[in-house]
């Protein structure tokens, strides 16, 4: 008897939960846009709200760490994806290569996004940029100018921390090294950096700053916006101490410039809401959205007329590597193979 009652209660709860979770997630009458994104929904929420306030279009968001391009490709014409949002140029180039994007040549986009940071055919565009910087201990590193190449110098043996070599941020940097210095030189360089590691590559960029504060290593590689995220973190205030323990060096500032990667967007080939997708692309490069985006994720706005967030501005003036971003992304697979070959993560 008890079990029958329990079973009925369980069935009732199950029925309520199932019906609740199968309810469509958007109002059928509402204008919507579906974004497949490598940036998680919490960070994108302010931008989506601003877009909805301006256009009345609500944004559905799918977040994944990897594989969104393949998912769109396999979904084919049934794919609900309108816009693809990535945090790495290689994924945009791949999206174009496998034929899941469509060209959008908007005069405003052509005007405000530098040619170096958009596709020549209009398949994708950058929304913002970020620099791959060197974090160095304020107390233990006296050098003010360093090059990426210096990280392989024997003087830094046992003093370098870095996240996995297979992470897109590092793969992108290694690709830029291949593009600038050649494959053989990059292999020697990567093996040199591996030999200088203080510990096995692990964690994220913020944990490298923490490791510097804890004296595990003196030098690390990290993205520009993480410094700001640590400095302004009020939820986990200890991260402010990590940020205060490091100084930021813009690598190769004296020669070819610092490696930058982009956050970018493309319209999906089978976008069911093409008009909304185009409106979203135009919104992304508008001054208001650029300011909002730059302030919420602390990246460099793609528009020259939008000021950099003050926290990022204090890191110094960025001299970006002028090499077209597509030339860098062309070496991504070679970079991944090099990481495996030198056993960087082992």
């Amino acid at each position, binding site marked *: 008897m008890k*079990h*029958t009652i*329990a*079973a009925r209660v*369980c069935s009732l709860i*199950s029925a309520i*939960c*199932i019906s*609740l*979770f*199968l309810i469509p*997630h958007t109002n059928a009458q509402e204008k919507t846009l*579906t974004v497949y994104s490598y940036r*998680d*929904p*919490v960070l994108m*929420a302010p931008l989506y709200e601003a877009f909805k306030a301006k256009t009345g279009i609500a944004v*559905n968001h*799918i*977040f*994944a*760490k*990897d*594989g969104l391009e*393949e*998912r769109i490709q*396999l*979904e*084919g014409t*049934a*794919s*609900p994806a309108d816009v693809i949002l990535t945090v790495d140029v290689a994924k945009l180039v*791949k999206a174009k290569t*496998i034929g899941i994007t469509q060209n959008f040549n908007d005069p405003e986009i052509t005007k405000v996004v530098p040619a170096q940071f958009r596709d020549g055919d209009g398949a994708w565009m950058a929304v913002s940029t970020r620099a791959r910087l060197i974090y160095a201990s304020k107390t233990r590193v006296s050098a003010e100018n360093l090059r990426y190449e210096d990280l392989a110098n024997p003087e830094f043996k046992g003093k370098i921390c870095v996240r996995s070599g297979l992470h*897109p941020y590092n793969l992108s940097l290694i690709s830029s090294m291949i593009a600038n210095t050649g494959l053989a030189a990059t292999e020697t360089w990567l093996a040199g950096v591996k030999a200088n590691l203080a*510990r*096995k*590559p*692990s*964690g*994220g*960029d913020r*944990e490298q700053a*923490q*490791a510097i504060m*804890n*004296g*595990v290593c003196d030098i690390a590689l990290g993205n520009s916006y993480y410094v700001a995220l640590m400095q302004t*973190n009020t*939820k*986990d205030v*200890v991260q402010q101490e990590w940020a205060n323990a490091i100084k930021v060096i813009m690598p190769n500032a004296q020669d070819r410039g610092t490696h930058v990667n982009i956050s970018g967007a493309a319209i999906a080939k089978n976008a*069911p809401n093409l008009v909304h997708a185009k409106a979203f692309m135009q919104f992304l490069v508008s001054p208001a959205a650029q300011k909002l985006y730059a302030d919420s994720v602390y990246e460099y706005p793609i528009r020259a007329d939008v000021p950099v967030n003050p926290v990022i501005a204090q890191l110094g003036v960025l001299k970006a590597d002028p090499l077209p971003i597509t030339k860098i992304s062309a070496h*991504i*697979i070679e970079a*991944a*193979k090099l990481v495996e*070959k030198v*056993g960087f*993560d082992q």
Partner: protein
Amino acid sequence: MKHAAPHHTHNWALSRWGAVFHSSHLKNFGFGLLICALVCAPMLALIIEALRNFNSSTWRDLLAYTLPNASMNTFIILLFASITGLLYGAGSAIALQFCHIPMRCTLVFLCVLPLAMPTYISSLGLMMLLDQNANIWGAQTLRALLASPFGAGCMFGLSLSPYVFLTCTTYLQRVDLSCINAAYTMGISTPKIARDVLLPLLRPACVGGCALIGMEVLNDVGTVSFLGVTTLTTSAFHMWAAQGQLGTAAQISLIVLVLAFGLLAAERKARKALSFTIDANINAKPLTLKLHTFTHYLFIIPCLVPFLVVFFVPLFVFLRASWGQSLPAFTALATLHSIGLGCGVAVLCCVSAFILLGMRRHAPSRVMSALLRTATSGYGVPGTLIGLGLLLCLPMLRNSWEWLFPTYGDAVVRALLVSSPILVMIALWIRFISVAQAPIEAGIAALSPTLEQAAYTLGASPAHALRTIRLPLLMPAVLSAGLMVGIDSIKELPATLLLHPAGFETLPTLIYAATHREAYEEAAPAALVLIACCLPILFGVLKLVAKR
């Protein structure tokens, strides 16, 4: 009699095939075949993709650089996960069965509690603790150890030791232990009894538990990615996601599949061995090992270590990190999605397992048994591979649908498969149907067929007999099956991450997103909510198991 045997065998075989193709059973056979086809479709898609895209130069690179390291790491993790799982799982089962330990019921609960916390959440908690206390002596060494294949193996072993504990405990309650008393009568010492009698006796249970641990290890992407250890599963995922080589990813996946099916076979063999136990004498006096009183208390250690390391410490870290913080955005919705997904998959798995087992009971044949075995083989396949396989099936499904309904093809496929959580549910159903099958099968086996026969004699229809006799009697087994599937589905990450539709975040995907952007302080409250969801379900399972 001997002369009649071949004829008898021939008749037997004919009658079995006859039973299958008998008009009344053809429907059952068709249903079983449909479930098998659904379970096998993603794996077949992967195999076809692997065979279609073989490239010898890619394999040269793989063999030279990627596979040696990934295989070695996978082997080390499997080895140490099994050793640790055995040490603590079997150790605590022996301790609670044979030692004078106070608060036995509480300790049983503590031994199973790690199941409420997924391994990737435990790893996150421990890493947060070590990073927060990096200046304390040994913290950096421990961190480096945890981020190694050895450390990852130990984490899995501790976290999944309840699997070994549960299989060993169930076994020890069913097996006749009078041989231990006999050994004592013969004057054999306790260490020798442990080595020569107890451990060989426990072997099938240990193999079964370790096989379950192994399958979970092969399924994992979250923990090893977080700890920075490359395994065969992550290599396949990386090959697909970062390098866009789907064919090569499928080829590496085949290695994982072979390993997983090996483990599945070992688990089934062990389960079969467990079913041939001699029933324990329930009136027998509880057996106690002859040990020093202090040694009895020492046996509390294996019961407490997994609970402390992979549950209590991470829980404490999350509570401290969440103190005074509001829940991250979308947590309420993600909780609803997780519970809804758990309930949905639980209902699906229980219903299909119930029907499959019922079919085998009414039309027992080798074909039906083979169908059942195939339908429940999904547990051995990592969630990432099921997800990948289902995605590979999408174009075929879309094309078939378009061919059938040219006007509504895309719209229906989009609404049903891509924009709703149905694909996630299918993936989890494929993976967890065997979790539901085991308790329901045990429940059906315990059911006397004479009860139903009596009902039929009294004029009850099969439906009436099912509703009034079988279902009420099987309800505890079905409920515990549902709860077990529910807890697994709520915790599941790899397949959900790969297949979830827009706006459908679950608690694991929310935690993964927060850890992905290195906002561990935001992941902590969501992790607490996940644990809070799992705890009452686990408690329910334990209560039901205890009653049975």
